[in-house]
């Protein structure tokens, strides 16, 4: 019997970890070296990386294709504004509250939408988002259909100058997005992640192997809702004004997110990051072409789905056998070294 060890790290993943550390440090220090406009774009990119990673978690890992996550994005925004306007609460403290509130609401919602499967589940999530939007439009104290702005006092409590406020919101966004990616990374490495993979490969086999399929999916859905709500709260903090249509915009918070993930690569953590970068590059080159931009994006997503379903990163990863986030386990025979991760 030869020695063997189960490892996860690869040479590429070690390098990537180093690069990631440098990038994160650079992003954290952005307020000191980036110009304000770039910080705004960086903040937007972080939001999309976060939203796309969450959608990827649901669809790529959980097999739950939702086209209604914008329900929770808008919910997060409205919770933040509600706490601010009605209770005068400091906005940054409300961000995690929004996450918790969304998780609580997502539980009964999941019991309804999980009665549907496949594409019907998808449309069901869209209906839920519509219900959230229509309900928000009925809440007159939060501006009803025309929306409301964050009161000056609350705005000032974030920071005394505009610059300061932008930095604070940016840092919070960075923290939340990193938290989301880290969370997904650890889920993927954990037993839960293994269970999700099993469910994705064959639900029936997973069920009979003792995996609580329904429970695992529900947990995923609730976690994704919480994440989306926190991001939604941060989005509203950046804009300082909400309306039902903008907070619950299916284009901004679902269509773009789906396209990013599809083009970047479904089912791998790196996918949403690659996709967001491509998305913003495309946006810069196609400038402000509105509908043309959406057509181009949609067309690229369709073509990608038909001919390269694993997305850009998926193609690269398979072609060069790279895995930047060390998740998959490998057995290394005859090389039992102390200190290597073992499950």
């Amino acid at each position, binding site marked *: 019997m030869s020695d063997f060890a189960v490892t996860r790290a690869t040479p590429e993943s070690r390098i990537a970890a180093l690069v990631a550390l440098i990038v994160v440090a650079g992003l954290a220090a952005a307020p000191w070296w980036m110009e304000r406009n770039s910080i705004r774009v960086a903040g937007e990119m972080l939001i999309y990386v976060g939203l796309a990673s969450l959608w990827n978690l649901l669809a790529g890992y959980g097999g739950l294709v939702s086209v209604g996550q914008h329900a929770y994005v808008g919910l997060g925004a409205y919770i933040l504004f509600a706490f601010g306007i009605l209770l005068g609460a400091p906005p940054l403290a409300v961000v995690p509250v929004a996450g918790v509130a969304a998780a609580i609401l997502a539980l009964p919602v999941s019991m309804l939408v999980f009665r549907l499967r496949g594409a*019907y589940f998808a449309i069901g999530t869209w*209906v839920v988002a519509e219900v959230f939007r229509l309900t928000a439009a009925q809440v007159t104290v939060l501006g009803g259909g025309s929306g409301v702005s964050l009161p000056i006092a609350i705005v000032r409590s974030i920071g005394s100058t505009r610059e300061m406020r932008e930095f604070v919101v940016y840092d919070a966004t960075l923290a939340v997005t990193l938290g989301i990616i880290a969370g997904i990374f650890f889920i993927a490495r954990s037993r839960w992640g293994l269970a999700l993979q099993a469910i994705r490969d064959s639900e029936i086999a997973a069920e009979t192997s003792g995996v609580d399929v329904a429970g695992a999916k529900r947990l995923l859905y609730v976690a994704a809702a919480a994440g989306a709500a926190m991001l939604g709260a941060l989005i509203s903090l950046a804009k300082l004004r909400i309306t039902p249509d903008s907070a619950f915009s299916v284009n901004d918070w679902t269509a773009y997110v789906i396209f990013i993930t599809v083009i970047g690569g479904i089912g791998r953590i790196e996918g949403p990051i690659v996709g967001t970068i491509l998305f913003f590059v495309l946006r810069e080159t196609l400038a402000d072409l509105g*509908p*043309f931009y959406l057509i181009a994006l949609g067309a690229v997503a369709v073509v990608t*789905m*038909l001919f390269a379903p694993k997305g850009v990163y998926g193609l690269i990863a398979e072609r060069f056998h790279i895995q930047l986030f060390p998740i998959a386990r490998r057995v290394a025979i005859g090389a039992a070294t102390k200190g290597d991760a073992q499950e």
Partner: protein
Amino acid sequence: MEWLNAVAQGVLIGGLYALFAAGLSLIFGVMRLVNIAHGDLIVLAAYVVLLIVGVTGLNPLVAIFIAAPVMAAFGYGLQRLLFNRTLGDDILPPLLVSFGLSVILQNILLIAFSADSRKLDAGAIETASWTLAPGLTLGLLPLLMFATALAVIGALQFMFYRTSLGRALRATSDDQEVARLMGYDNRHLYGVAMALSLAVVAVAGAFLAVRANFIPSAGPARLIFGFEAVIIGGLGNLWGTLIGGVILGVAQSLGAMIDPGWQLLAGHLAFLLVLAVRPQGLMPRISA
């Protein structure tokens, strides 16, 4: 009486929702495909009717007879060139491709026709009405819509259960591998099914254009109404879809009576209620 009137209006609009849903239901029944772009195709049909009316001067409801074959041909091509490539065990491709198509269609229409809202004029029929009793008046157009829904669903049922094409579609839906053993070309049959679906979509689009204003982004709402009608009525049953549409219409109508802003919400809540209490729908034939 007011309530009775509201219910009556709701029933009639249910016919339109059933028309929205019939094409969706047909496609799901034959190939288990849910086309997220379905609502946008209805809107596309409305604009096609607009173009036909502009060129020929025909009444929009008469233009259906030109729009339907045009949309059917488009549907056949769409299926064979696009959707046939997505069919298989994985649910992601058809879902994401139809979602992408939805966004593409909306924006092409936006570029071609701008965001101005349009409405087509069907003439006298729009204002004609029939007073059944004091306080209970039925518009002729809604009546025609409901009658058309009945006729379309009846025709589809006849096709499915009494023609060789229907037999071919049902066989392919049951077991597409064995259907090929009989000599059925399932790629062609799927194309025919989509063509039929879009012919129905053309009818729905024409009524949409005549009944109220429409804009390029009106698709998703139509998809949702159609989808809710299908789920309330039960999968795989076209008459169930009609019942589902009626229930949805009545719920919306009653909601509007309480408060105009509640119209859509009431419909959605009725759908969620059915989902909570009887998720398989009222008259299901297939399980999803």
